[in-house]
């Protein structure tokens, strides 16, 4: 068991309890910079932990979540690395320091803890939440189809047995409702980054309609810059664009809702699949994935700081 976060093994996948211990350790080591907020409980009663990196009161916020799809282990593994990176770079890296002197960063490392636990104990390929569906033997809802923008449209499934089941109603999943409540109560988030894997894409709204977002030109150019910076490290090539034009119609997705809440810089990442292992990306890919993704996150966060709205 690592005694400090310096001893933590960032190059390996970890179980939920280890990730929770890591978060507590990081908070304890840096209580002037980080606090842990519990924004709600999962269906099975697990705390929904968010790390808040803050250097002052009443700041606008930047949200980053990882692990909303349970089997995408590379995303919480990257989230852990991001958390440590923020601590390491604050006061050393002038750009990050400037960002944190003006914005709070909120990081939810395991957004779907019931699903994550299930992937470690019962089914490594599980993607959804773990709430039972009345009248069906199939469990869980796709947490990226459960948001209240375009909910229930053709870019989601009404069949509880499908991987893209949208759920009985918007925000039916406590894991989603908790974020919705947090976003509304905070009221001043400027950037929302939801991190998925895999297929190497950076996507912005919309997924539920083909009408361009009103900020499409800016979002597109920022995506170009972010993916170019990401590619500069290990030559990982990303495509980028709106969800509906780049992949397919997807209804009830996270960033459509956040964008319509007024959070202009709303993006979804689909992390690398170099090695073509999909959701069983080898652990030796964790550090390169996190490092390259961080470069793109920094581009978006810096742009947010330089372009207040």
């Amino acid at each position, binding site marked *: 068991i690592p005694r400090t976060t310096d001893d933590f*093994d960032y190059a*390996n*996948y*970890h179980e939920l309890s280890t990730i929770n211990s890591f978060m507590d350790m990081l908070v304890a080591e840096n209580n002037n910079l980080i606090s842990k907020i519990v924004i709600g409980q999962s269906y099975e009663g697990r705390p929904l932990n968010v790390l808040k990196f803050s250097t002052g009161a009443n700041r606008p916020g930047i949200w980053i979540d990882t692990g909303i799809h349970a089997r995408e282990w590379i995303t919480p593994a990257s989230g852990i690395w991001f958390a440590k990176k923020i601590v390491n770079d604050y006061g050393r890296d002038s750009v990050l320091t400037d960002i944190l002197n003006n914005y709070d960063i909120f990081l939810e490392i395991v957004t779907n803890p019931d699903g994550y636990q299930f992937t470690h*104990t*019962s*089914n*490594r*390929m599980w993607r959804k939440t773990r709430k039972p569906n009345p009248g069906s033997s199939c469990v869980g809802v796709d947490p990226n189809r459960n948001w209240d923008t375009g909910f229930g449209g053709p870019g989601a499934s009404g069949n509880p*047995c499908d*991987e893209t089941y949208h759920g009985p109603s918007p925000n039916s999943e406590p894991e989603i409702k908790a974020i919705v409540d947090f976003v509304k109560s905070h009221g001043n988030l400027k950037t929302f980054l939801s991190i998925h894997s*895999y*297929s190497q894409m950076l996507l912005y709204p919309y997924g539920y309609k083909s009408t361009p977002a009103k900020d499409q030109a800016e979002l597109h150019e920022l995506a170009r810059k972010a993916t170019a910076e990401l590619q500069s490290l290990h030559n990982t090539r990303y495509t980028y664009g709106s969800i509906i034009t780049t*992949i*397919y119609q997807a209804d009830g997705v996270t960033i459509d809702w956040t964008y319509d809440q007024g959070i202009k810089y709303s993006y979804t990442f689909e992390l690398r699949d170099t090695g*073509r*292992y*999909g*959701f*069983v990306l*080898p*652990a030796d890919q964790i550090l390169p994935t996190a490092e390259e993704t961080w470069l793109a996150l920094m581009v978006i966060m810096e742009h947010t700081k330089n372009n207040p709205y």
Partner: protein
Amino acid sequence: KTTFEGHQVLRITAQDAAQINLLKELSEQQHLGLDLWMEPVHESLPVDVRVPFNSLQAVRSFLGYNHIQYRVMIEDVQDLLDEEQRHMLKSHV
């Protein structure tokens, strides 16, 4: 515990919209138990699908009959998961 012995992940490359439509039809065959990691959307994007062992023959026949190109991306998913488990245990030790 759900295991994935003999499951393969195929990377399918459609050549045109007609093949994309065929793949969409294939993906709707619930009895095959396919798990689409990347869905059939456009011929410029590959389709990755995890195929249970019992459905492999049917899926390969369908792809062959329709002249849809594919290759095996993961030979046996469980082998990779076992390797992942070994790696985690080793790191814990």
